[in-house]
């Protein structure tokens, strides 16, 4: 193990931070959030030009050969700036699922245009009854003469509103909850029978519920071995949880230091708020939570190197519980210590609370991961 960033990784961090500081201040983010798509296509092109969209993907699919840590560096910086672009959903969650399911040769056709910023992917996997269970797929894929017919309902598909290509999980055999029998299908989001209902989450990100009604796809749209996609979905979920953990960490860290600065400037009773020991101790507790979250993120990286998928899953669940609890504590107190200004929508600190609340609910909530950890 080596917990120090390499020179190359420091450069990545600095370059993402520079972009966020120059192009992603809170006022510009507010404008983006209120725009029709809820994010900027121009920013997305910039991400492609700077190589961030392929940073953790192998060269065989047109990526730059980095790993999970490089991706996390980007996400941590994005967390600090509350970036709205669908990086987590497309570059991490969907791309890792495609790669793990299909292998580099088949994945190249989907990932190359994604890395170039020409195509945006979303993984349409989540269903109403899943509540975090990766194997919960009710959507069906029935063989036809020249391919499959898909039927089912996907909910709260991250990045699902703006994606042009959907990676859909559907069952060719077995019952919901069984690991065997799940396949992934790549299809054009504009396919006949696909209807999307877009809405936003409290943090401003755009998602969609996606109904699939007699959607006809060709046999070549199936990615990888038939019915064997669970492992890929499991892997992609772990990668997404790590990326989300890094993003959460970035958000918590910025919220904490912003609050520290506020306490040093805000005066009440003739003194600045930082002189009150009760508030100092609260901030000390916030720092403890922040540091434990960073440790837990590293624990997640370590777990991901394990051969046993149960150990990987357990490590990711531990991280998810940590960001659920610590994220709520740190950003909730950041709002509290700001007082009135903290609960206004026009000030940034409350938006960290919204993002961390959302993070706590995505990919299975804290209770789900607590129970999963206990059972593994």
């Amino acid at each position, binding site marked *: 193990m080596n917990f120090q960033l390499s020179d190359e990784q420091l450069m990545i961090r600095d370059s993402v931070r520079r972009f966020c500081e120059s192009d992603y201040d809170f006022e510009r983010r507010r404008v983006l959030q209120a725009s029709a798509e809820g994010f900027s296509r121009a920013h997305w092109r910039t991400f492609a030009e700077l190589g961030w969209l392929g940073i953790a993907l192998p060269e065989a699919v047109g990526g730059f050969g980095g790993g999970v840590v490089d991706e996390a560096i980007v996400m941590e910086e994005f967390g600090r700036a509350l970036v709205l672009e669908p990086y987590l959903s497309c570059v991490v969650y969907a791309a890792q699922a495609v790669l793990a399911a299909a292998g580099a040769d088949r994945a190249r056709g989907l990932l190359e245009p994604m890395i170039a910023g020409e195509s945006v992917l979303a993984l349409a996997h*989540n269903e*109403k*009854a899943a*509540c975090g*269970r990766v194997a919960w797929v009710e959507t069906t894929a029935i063989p036809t003469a020249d391919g499959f017919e898909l039927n089912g309902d996907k*909910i*709260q598909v991250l990045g699902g509103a703006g994606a042009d290509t959907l990676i859909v999980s559907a069952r060719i055999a077995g019952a919901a909850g069984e690991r065997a029998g799940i396949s992934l299908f790549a299809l054009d989001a504009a396919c006949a029978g696909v209807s999307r*209902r*877009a*809405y*936003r*989450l*409290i*943090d401003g990100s755009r*998602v969609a*519920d996606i109904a699939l009604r007699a959607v006809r796809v060709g046999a070549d749209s199936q990615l990888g071995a038939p019915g064997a996609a669970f492992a890929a979905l499991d892997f992609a979920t772990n990668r997404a949880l790590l990326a989300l953990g890094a993003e959460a960490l970035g958000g918590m860290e910025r919220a904490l230091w912003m609050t520290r600065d506020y306490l040093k400037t805000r*005066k*009440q*009773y*003739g003194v600045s708020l930082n002189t*009150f020991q*009760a*508030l100092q101790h609260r901030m000390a507790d916030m720092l403890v939570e922040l540091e434990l979250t960073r440790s837990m993120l590293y624990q997640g990286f370590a777990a991901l190197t394990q051969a046993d998928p149960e150990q990987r899953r357990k490590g990711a669940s531990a991280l998810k519980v940590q960001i659920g609890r610590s994220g*709520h504590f740190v950003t*909730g107190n950041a*709002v*509290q210590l700001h*007082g*009135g200004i*903290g*609960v*206004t*929508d*026009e000030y940034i600190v*409350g938006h960290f*609370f*919204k993002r961390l*609340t*959302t993070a706590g*609910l*995505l990919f299975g*909530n804290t*209770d789900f991961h*607590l*129970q999963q950890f206990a059972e593994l």
Partner: protein
Amino acid sequence: MHFEPDPADEIFRQEVRQFIRAHLPQDIARRARRGYHPERPDLERWTRILNQRGWAAPHWPTEYGGTGWSPLRRHIFQEELRAAHAPVIGQAAFELVGPVLYTFGNEQQKALYLPRILNADDFWCQGFSEPGAGSDLAALRTRAVRDGDHYLVNGHKLWTSEGHYADMMFALVRTNTEVKPQAGISFLLIDMRDPGISVRPILTLDEGHSVNEVFIDNVRVPVANLVGEEGKGWGYAKFLLGNERTMSAEVPHTKQDLALLKNIASRELRNGRPLLEDSLFRAKVAQLEIDLLALEFSVLRVLNLPENDPGLLPVASVLKMRGAELRQRVSELSVEALGDYGAAFYPDPEGHAQLAELVPPGPDYASGVVSKFLFRRATTIYGGANEVQRNIIAKSILGL
């Protein structure tokens, strides 16, 4: 001491329940149930219905329109109102300025304003906080300078709830800068329709509009609008905030929120079974119910004890703090109960019309739950932040 319930109180509860059932308009209850910020027309209609029955201000002295009910009956009344999803009527008027007026106001002020409050002819807002005066309220700088039979008022008020539709503001203003801060403050009634008043909306985390900032620019206020004596405003404000703290335990409200939470959790499924049957979730609901019971009996203690009882202050001090925390925790668990749809933003179906195309497809009972969760972050900040409440306990009760 005895704990036998009085059968007459139960008869009273039934009477109240029947009245509300017969008279609370369904559309008003529907909107209040969703939990978005109430609009003035609904509050006007409901206040007048209550006023016709003589129940708009049960806690006021009977000579000013109160009912003479015991504290316990007032509590029962509130419970029934919340259980039926009646909107909370003008708190600034009924709970805050009303008692100040009948306690410290002169006969003209009482005769003019109290009936107009009871009939919802006037809506009020509170002009206390300022940009530099939050927890440290005595630092307020809004200035009122005497000029013949008027005060000339200039200043800037913040976090003014319902300021956008209020007719009147009761404000703390500085009338003397030569004395210590608390002694230079007066309590003034300001007409919000004055052209020197401008109101800017402040959207809160729920993206809703209930608070504002109010700019007061060369507003001439008749000296007749001074409440009590000049320079005594701080004492009136402390009296008023004391009332606010008892009220803000919000037990009837939290009870209703908890009932809604259990309703949601019995309809939401986890692993094919009602969420309420999940042992982990069930235990969290139970903990909230237990904490609410402790708070409820704290409220009952406060309501039962005479005002000069030495046991009153310690128990009263926990109400605001614990009540605010409990409201937050119930709203947090309610969001959790919604599953994935707990993260969705739900525009007010009768407001936010421009966002109609982005209405999420969550269950109908989700609407309002998420916005309440976001707005409730303010409960531990307004009316004296919880940190200030702890300071009060440490200083006034523990003598530290």
